[in-house]
C-alpha cells in the first residue's frame, strides 16, 4: 500500500536520525535507566542495611553503607520484646485471607453473571468501578465508624475484612468478568446439550479455565488489604485485630527516632509476604496492576 520510493540509505535524509545520534539516544536511555534504577533500589537496600545494624550503629557518622558488624538483634527482638509485631502480622494474614475469600466468592458469581447476561447493568458496573476508586476513604470511614460501633464490629477481624473486601471488589469484578469473557459460550452450550446442569458447568468446566483470573483477583485483593492503612487504623485499636500497616506505625510512633534499626526490621517483615508473592506470582501482580487502567 505504501508506495516504495527509491531510498538511498547511505545519504542522510530530512528527519532521519543519523547513526551517531542513534547511538547517543541509546546511550542516554541507558544512563537514565541506570540512574533511575539506583534511585529506585537504593532505599530498599538501605532499609535492609539499617535493619542489619544495631540501633546505636545507625547513628554512626559517616553512615556505613554496608554494616561492618551486621547484627540480627532486631530480628531476634521481633520474637521477644517486639512480639506484638508478630500479632499484627498474623492479623494481616487473617484479614487478607478473609478479604480474598470475600472478593472471590462474590466476584466469581457476579463476574459470571455480568459476562453471560450482558445488560445495562454491566455497563453501569464498569462505570462504577472507576468512580468507586474516587470514593474518599476518609469520608467513608465516618459513617462506617458509627455503624461498626453500633454493630460491635469495631476492633474485630470481620469488620476490616468487610471493608477491605468491598474496596477490592469492583476491580476484582472487572478482572473476573474479563476472564469469563475470554471463555467462549459455545463451551457451555455444548455441555448443556450433553446434559450438564448449570452448576456442573460452572464448577467443572469454567472454573479450571479461569484459574489465572482467580489468581490475579486473589493476589490483587490480598495486596490491597495488606497495604491498606487508614480504615484499618480507624476500625481497630488493639492487637486483637489490628493489622500490620497501622500497627507498625502506631507501635513505633513514640520512639521511632531512637530505634531506627528495629523499625526497619519490622518494615522488612511488613514487605516480605509481598515480595514473596511478587517473586512467584509476578505476572499476576502486573496484570492486576495494568488491568484497571488498560481495560478502561
Amino acid at each position, binding site marked *: 500500500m*505504501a508506495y516504495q520510493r527509491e*531510498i538511498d540509505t547511505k545519504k542522510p535524509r*530530512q*528527519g*532521519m536520525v543519523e547513526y551517531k545520534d542513534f547511538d547517543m539516544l541509546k546511550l542516554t536511555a*541507558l544512563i*537514565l535507566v541506570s540512574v*533511575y*534504577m539506583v534511585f*529506585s533500589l537504593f*532505599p530498599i537496600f*538501605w*532499609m535492609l542495611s*539499617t535493619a542489619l545494624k544495631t540501633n546505636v550503629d*545507625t547513628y554512626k557518622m*559517616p*553512615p556505613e553503607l554496608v554494616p561492618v558488624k551486621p547484627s540480627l538483634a532486631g530480628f531476634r527482638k521481633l520474637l521477644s520484646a517486639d512480639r506484638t509485631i508478630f500479632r499484627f502480622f498474623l492479623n494481616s494474614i487473617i484479614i487478607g485471607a478473609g478479604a480474598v475469600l*470475600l472478593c472471590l*466468592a*462474590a*466476584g466469581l*458469581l*457476579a463476574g459470571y*453473571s455480568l459476562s453471560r447476561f450482558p445488560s445495562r*447493568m454491566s455497563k453501569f458496573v464498569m462505570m*462504577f468501578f*472507576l468512580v468507586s*476508586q*474516587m*470514593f*474518599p*476513604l*476518609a*469520608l*467513608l470511614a*465516618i*459513617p*462506617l465508624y458509627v*455503624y461498626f*460501633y453500633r454493630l460491635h464490629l469495631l476492633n474485630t477481624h470481620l469488620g476490616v475484612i468487610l471493608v477491605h473486601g*468491598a474496596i477490592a*471488589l469492583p476491580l476484582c469484578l472487572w478482572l473476573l468478568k474479563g476472564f469469563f469473557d475470554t471463555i467462549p459460550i459455545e463451551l457451555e452450550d455444548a455441555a448443556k446439550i450433553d446434559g450438564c446442569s*448449570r452448576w456442573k458447568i460452572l464448577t467443572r468446566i469454567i472454573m479450571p479455565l479461569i484459574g489465572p483470573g482467580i489468581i490475579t483477583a486473589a493476589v490483587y485483593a490480598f495486596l490491597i488489604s495488606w*497495604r491498606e492503612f*487508614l480504615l484499618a487504623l*480507624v476500625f481497630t485499636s488493639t492487637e486483637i485485630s489490628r493489622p500490620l500497616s497501622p500497627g*507498625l*506505625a502506631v507501635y*513505633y510512633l513514640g520512639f521511632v527516632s531512637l530505634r531506627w534499626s528495629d*523499625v526497619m526490621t519490622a*518494615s522488612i517483615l511488613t*514487605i516480605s509476604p*509481598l515480595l514473596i508473592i*511478587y517473586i512467584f506470582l509476578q505476572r499476576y*501482580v*502486573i496484570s492486576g*496492576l*495494568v488491568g484497571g*487502567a488498560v481495560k*478502561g
Partner: protein
Amino acid sequence: MLKKHRLSDTWVSVLLLLPSLAIIGGVLLYPLIDAFRISFTSLNLIGFKGKLVGFRNYTAIFQSTLYQTVLINTLVISTVAVAIRFIIGMGLALAINRTFKGKTIVRGLLILPWLIPSVVVGILWMWMLDTDIGIVNYFLVASGLVSIKIPWLADTIFSKVAVIIAFVWTGTPFIMVVMLAGLQAIPHEIVESATTDGAGRFAIFRFITLPYLRSLIAISTLLSIVYIFQNFAVIYMLTKGGPGYATEIFSLFVYEMAFNSGRLGRASAIGVTWMILLLAFSIVYVRLIAGREQTLR
C-alpha cells in the same frame, strides 16, 4: 446467534449479582450517601450526638483559610508528583520497550517501589530524609552539592518536596507498566512503514505513539492523581501534615477533623467537597487529555 432470554435467566443473573451488590451497596454506596447526610449535621464523635444544621458546615469551610491551604496543598502536590511520575514513567517505558537481555529483570526491579506499602514508604523516607542522620543529607553534603544539611521535614517548602519525592518514588512504576503495555499494543507495521518513509524517532513519537496512547495516558495519570488524593499513610508518617499545615492534604484533614477533633459533621462536609472536586476534576481532565472522540467505555 440467538439468545433466548428466559425469565429464569433473569432471576439467575440477578441472584448471582446479589452478594456483590449487597457488599458494595452496604459498605461503599450507602455510607457515602449517609456521609452526605451527616455533613448537614453537627454530629460529634462523643456519644454520636448531633442535630441538623443546614449548610453551616459548608459555609464555615469555605470561609476557613485552613481549608483553602489544604485544597491548594492537595492540588499542587498531586499534580506536580503525577507530572514527574509521568515524565519519568513514560521515559522509562520508551527506554525499556526494546527487547534486550535482562529486560524482565530490569522491569521487575523497577516495579519494586510500587509494592511497598505506603506506611513503609513513609517510614523509610522519614528515615532517609532525617536532617541529622539521614542518608540523603549525608550524600548531599559529602558530595558538595549543598553546604548545610537540608531540614527536609521541618521546612515549609522542603517538606512539600520531600512528600513529592516519596510519591514519585512509589508511584512511577504504575505509569511505567501501563505505558509499556500501551506501547506494546501499537501495531508494528505502522511504525515500520513510517520509518521506511523517513520519519525520525521524534516524529514517530509525536505522530504515532502519543495519539495511540492518548486515552491510556489520560486514565493512568488520572488514577495516579486519585491515588495521591486517597493516600494517607505516606504523609501521615512522613510529616503528619506538617510543619504547621504545609503538607496537609484532604485525606489527613478529614481524618483529623473526624477522629482527633471529633467533629464528624464538619469532617463529612470537607469530605463531600473533596469528592465533588475530584469527580468534576476527573470529567474535565479526561475530556481534555483524551479528546472528545474517546469516551470511557
